[in-house]
């Protein structure tokens, strides 16, 4: 059974009831159990769990420490292009935004790499919009190949692709692929993604399976918090993870928590998640899966990030620029979203050390003879 079939066995109204009818006792039972079921996860993300947030945080911290130790993985995004054929109502790169469009040349990519390396980074995340004619598989594969000698670990966050294309990217040296479903609320999906290839809900939801089949080491999942009900979307995302981790048992998984923030010309949505709720969500994920990498970006504020790193997060970006050419300062190209924490990587590393954690800059070595 594909995930899309399994997904349809969980009608939205039933999921909603399961979450919102969870009782305090169910939350306590979920916290006490060793292997959490989907109903347990529903209880942990429910409004009922809010009163047990401190207990959840304590447990999340202890589980994270046991599995990941006193360490924090450092990563940074490199935006290669802001060209995009999709209309997404929340994104600064949306096709209908009249902004300057840029696609980095080889020289510009290497220039960005040099600056990123000078900050101490050895892991990089390459990001693009979706413009298959100009920023398709060939462009991305080429970028990975020219960056391979400079970084130990390359991840990408680009348009969904075919399995054979992922195999090509894997062979070129891609370690992880991040592809967020944005929302699992199928009937609303089209409203947020009215035009472009991205408007195909089913193709997007089946992307992680194509990644698993292609043998990509790590798959990054997530929902865009604030687009629809974060509790319902997160439930489906957890269902997705459970399905994938059994089927693709050699694959690692990570989860990110992008939450909607103001972007150029984009109105704010009304399902925003509060700081307290986001902490609840992070802790719920940790209790659900103690091996899952949980990642937090510079979308979040200084104060929030300083406090969240000891509660379950295992990887963090710092000093990020979300516009192509941003590190070498390309002022004309607009950013995808606004950075909230603009401290330098060294400042963040210092903050991490002061909390008793060791920032990890390198945690991968290519050991495939084919590269």
């Amino acid at each position: 059974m594909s995930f899309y079939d399994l997904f349809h066995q969980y009608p939205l109204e039933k999921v909603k009831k399961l979450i919102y009818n969870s009782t305090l006792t169910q939350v306590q039972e979920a916290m006490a159990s060793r292997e959490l079921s989907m109903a347990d996860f529903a209880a942990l993300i429910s409004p009922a769990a809010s009163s047990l947030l401190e207990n959840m945080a304590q447990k999340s911290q202890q589980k994270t420490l046991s599995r990941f130790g006193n360490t924090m993985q450092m990563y940074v995004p490199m935006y290669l292009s802001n060209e995009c054929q999709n209309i997404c109502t929340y994104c600064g790169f949306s096709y209908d935004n009249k902004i300057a469009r840029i696609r980095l040349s080889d020289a510009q990519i290497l220039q960005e790499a040099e600056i990123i390396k000078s900050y101490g980074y050895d892991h990089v995340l390459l990001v693009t919009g979706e413009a298959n004619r100009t920023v398709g598989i060939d462009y991305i594969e080429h970028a990975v190949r020219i960056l391979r000698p400079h970084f130990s670990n390359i991840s990408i966050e680009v348009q969904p692709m075919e399995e054979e294309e992922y195999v090509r990217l894997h062979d070129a040296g891609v370690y992880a692929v991040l592809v967020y479903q944005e929302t699992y609320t199928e009937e609303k999906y089209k409203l947020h993604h009215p035009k472009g290839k991205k408007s195909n809900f089913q193709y997007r939801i089946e992307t992680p399976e194509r990644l698993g089949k292609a043998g990509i080491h790590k798959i990054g999942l997530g929902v865009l918090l604030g687009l629809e009900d974060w509790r319902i979307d997160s439930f489906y995302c957890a269902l997705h993870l459970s399905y994938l981790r059994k089927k693709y048992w050699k694959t690692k998984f990570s989860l990110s928590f992008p939450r909607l923030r103001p972007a150029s010309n984009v109105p704010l949505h009304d399902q925003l998640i509060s700081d307290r709720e986001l902490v609840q969500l992070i802790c719920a994920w940790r209790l659900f899966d103690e091996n899952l990498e949980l990642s937090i970006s510079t979308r979040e504020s200084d104060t929030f990030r300083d406090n969240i790193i000891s509660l379950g997060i295992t990887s963090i970006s710092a000093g990020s620029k979300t516009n192509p050419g941003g590190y070498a300062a390309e002022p004309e190209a607009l950013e995808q979203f606004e950075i909230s924490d603009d401290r330098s990587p060294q400042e963040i590393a210092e903050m991490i050390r002061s909390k008793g954690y060791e920032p990890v800059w390198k945690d991968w070595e290519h050991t495939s003879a084919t590269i």
Partner: protein
Amino acid sequence: MDRLIIAGKEFNSRLFLGTGKFSSNQMMSEAIATSGSELVTVALKRMDFRNPQHLMLRSLIDSGVNLLPNTSGVRNAEEAIFAARLAREALQTNWLKLEIHPDPRYLLPDPIETLKATEVLAKEGFIILPYINADPVLCKRLEDVGTSAVMPLAAPIGSNQGLQTRAMLEIIIAESNVPVIIDAGIGAPSHAAQAMEMGADAVLVNTAIAIAGDPVRMAEAFRWAVASGRMARMAQLPKTMREAQASSPLTSFLN
């Protein structure tokens, strides 16, 4: 003097340490020093070979402890062999902790790929210490292809559950012709002492020390637990009995 010998190399300490999960390089170095350990594992994937000033590597090399590179992160024999060659070149050592775990969740070792890689690497002159499940038959198969030791797990790595595989470990220890180093799952000094009393040649500990409230003191606790467990083994532990045995037997007058 009761010394451990692996592939001709002598060790005074039977406690090996892993170097992950520590909050700083300084903490790690202090814990290693206090533990008395003479062999520590380093994850190849964490080391920046292109940067000789890499802090972790620097602190370890300066401390004079022997380094045992591990292949953590590889998923099959081919990747492990590539990583082993890389480690030998970078660290100038032919010692290798072979870890092949295709499953990132429980990090359980793949016996088939481990056997394949051991066979190839032993022929290339590597001193192989493979991380394996507590499988007595696999241990014999690894001996056949030239392993220098075996490192069976006591419980899933990082789980601190202690000697869950005791029954299999006892068979491995009884039958092995190479040193048996119990690796993974040892969560307390008492577990380490039990492993040594059972007859293990050494133990490898990481998580229990690295994430302790005071890693340096915990390292010292493990140092004495391992030494005392070994001492008990050498002193020959009395067998455990179901029934009471009088200290002054009733029939001793017949002797």
